[in-house]
């Protein structure tokens, strides 16, 4: 769901009867490096396309744009709710608010954002790789294959390649 890493991504493939050290056919993740992937950025209002989870805080409503960030909505006039801005955060799916801070995920990191001025979207702190299972594209596109388990430190998975004679395909989906 939402590209999150679910049951299949744990390193359980080795326990399956069909496991082999060199798998005749298996999926291998293709990583890319995006220097901005693990940064957040305040942007002007953006269109809501892939609407996601919501969190209400006083007269503000935050809505996740799936895997892209968070919309900041002022609904003090309920007949005319307005987008105030957008916090760009790649891989974002989750959110919560405590005090004056919005806590979200940015890829696999936990990020706390100061809401003193919500549209500034200022990062207060970050915990690297707090959620290793929140990787995007964490499983291959088709089930029924062994695959090389993703590693959060290696970057963003942009796609999967089906390759022959693959070593270390320890995951199964």
């Amino acid at each position, binding site marked *: 769901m939402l590209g999150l890493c679910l049951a299949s991504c744990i390193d359980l493939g080795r326990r399956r009867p069909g496991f082999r050290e060199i798998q005749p056919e298996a999926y291998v993740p293709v990583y890319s490096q995006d220097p901005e992937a693990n940064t957040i950025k305040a942007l002007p209002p953006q269109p809501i396309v892939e609407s996601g989870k919501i969190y*209400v805080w006083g007269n503000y409503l935050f809505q996740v744009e799936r895997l892209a960030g968070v919309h900041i909505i002022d609904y003090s006039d309920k007949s005319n709710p307005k987008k105030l801005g957008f916090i760009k955060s790649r891989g974002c799916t989750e959110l919560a608010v405590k005090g004056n801070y919005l806590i979200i995920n940015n890829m696999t990191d936990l990020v706390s954002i100061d809401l003193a001025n919500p549209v500034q979207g200022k990062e207060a702190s970050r915990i690297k790789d707090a959620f290793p299972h929140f990787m995007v594209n964490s499983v291959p596109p088709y089930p029924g294959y062994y695959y090389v388990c993703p590693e959060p430190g290696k970057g963003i998975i942009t796609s999967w390649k089906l390759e022959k004679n693959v070593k270390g395909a320890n995951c199964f989906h």
Partner: protein
Amino acid sequence: MKRIQSIIYLLLLLSLTQLSCDKSSDSGPKSPTSGAGGSLARFAISGNYLYTVDFSTIRIFDITDPANPLDKGMVNAGWDIETIFPYKDKLFLGGATGMYVFSIADPLKPTREGMVTHFRACDPVVANDTVSYVTLRSGGPGSCGGTNNVLNVYDVKIASSPNLVRTISMKSPYGLGIKNKGLYVCEGANGMVVFDLSDPYTPVQKQVITNETFYDVIPYGNLLIAYIEKGVCFYDISNPFSPVLLGKLKG
């Protein structure tokens, strides 16, 4: 591949009663210290702690200073956990094989107290002292295996051993929420169904709102905030069985 999505919703009468007693405003608290999330959440705040679920673990963060969350480790939770809901000193988790109840009497050491495995459930969990509402959805994205589209009503007076008391057929249930005697079940493209909970163990369907694709709701004071396709919309639920559309934001 046909899969089922399931939704567990355990009602929190106490917290809801507190919300409904907030007469200072018809739009919810004005200066909350924390807000409110929907029933699909993987993040849940209880006191000074943030609990998160991903796949098979509960992660614990100390957010006494929310500007600087501190990683406090993790505990093994179950299997394919999708949602988390805190109630009093408990966490209710929705997972692919059932619902898990964890005690957070010691907030740094969530401890499994009970579970139910006779239904497949992988979405929202929200709870109450006496009754819980669980939806199971078959097919569609985010589903978790299974064959039914139903709303189940559980007696949860003994939280560690919920007792099924009623099953109601649904079309494609997602998230849900309650306010006083109103139960709101999102059904994706099939709209949102409004139930009367005058008898909490016998929900009575009052109407179906079909003009949007509904995924989740947050009851917030007399407001019902709905997460819909491409946006959000706001209803006045002063009369819980007749939501009045106040406005919407799409695109």
